[in-house]
């Protein structure tokens, strides 16, 4: 129930973000400082999420060589191709390969 409520709140909030200017504030503009800050939401949150997923609550990092290799190659492929499909394939392939070797 808690999970469903959490998802519903995120859904409602997302709809409000998408609808706010179209329904209610058509003649308003987003203030410039907010526009600038919005650009940095994705990189800051994604980086924070990755760290949060890889550390436990005492701040210990729980990854080994295969994970690090997969992140490096996955990151490089993402940078070159700008494509999620290639990133996923390359990252998982390297992860399995290195894990089999070490």
């Amino acid at each position, binding site marked *: 129930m808690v*999970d*469903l409520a*959490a*998802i519903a*709140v*995120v*859904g409602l*909030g*997302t*709809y409000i*973000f*998408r*609808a*706010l*200017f*179209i*329904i209610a*504030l*058509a003649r308003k*503009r*987003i203030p410039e*400082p907010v526009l600038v*800050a*919005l*650009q*940095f*939401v*994705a*990189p*800051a*949150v*994604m*980086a*924070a*999420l*990755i*760290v*949060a*997923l890889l*550390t*436990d*609550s005492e*701040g210990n990092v729980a990854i080994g060589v295969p*994970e690090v290799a*997969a*992140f490096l190659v*996955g*990151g490089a492929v*993402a*940078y070159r191709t*700008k*494509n*999620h*499909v290639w*990133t*996923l394939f390359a*990252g*998982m392939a390297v*992860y399995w390969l290195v*894990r089999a070797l070490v």
Partner: protein
Amino acid sequence: MSVDRSVARQGVIDALPLVVPAIPFGLVIGLAITTSGMNQLVGWSSSWLIFGGAAQLTVITLLGSGVAVAAAVSTALVVNARHLMYSAALAPTFQSQPRWFRWLGPYVLIDQVFALTSVRPEEEPVRFRTYYLAAGATFWTIWQAVVALGLLIGPVVPEEWNLEFAIPILFIGLLVIGIDQWPKVVAAAVGAGITYLAADLPSRTGLLVGAAVGILAGTIAERFRHG
């Protein structure tokens, strides 16, 4: 009527190449739902309640990893805050649309629908609406199916493949693909560093602190860039 139909067909055709990268993304979300241990139907319903891959993946993985519910919800909302920009950019075009479409249209205003429709502001209103709805409905339908498929695949794949490692890989992809200027690198590095330092905050709320400081750092770096 035939004009409408050809516009609708164009919307579907234009949407299809953009759907392809979303397919593995949807499969990974299905996997994340299985891994998180939440009720599968509840997890899947995020596909139509939220209808946005990055926020779905965020809230599902965080709920499954013992983060406080309020922190999971706020982080996912922050992830989707970029949709405010889409709403503001399309608002003038939507002013010539009927009320029902101003309420329905935003529901499917995902990155790809924005990319396809924001380049057609001069379109005649009925044609714009038809195209928008056709593209939106295409993404919506395929997304529901792909996430469900991910739920079915998850338990079938042998556990020693560690397929759930695709989740952080996908986050790395989302991070790197979005970086097109150095202040974003600053935002990411500071966000990661502060989250790491704040890892022992209660209920893993260090994530929100890290994200907030990262956004601030990016904003400051941007000021230097224009120095």
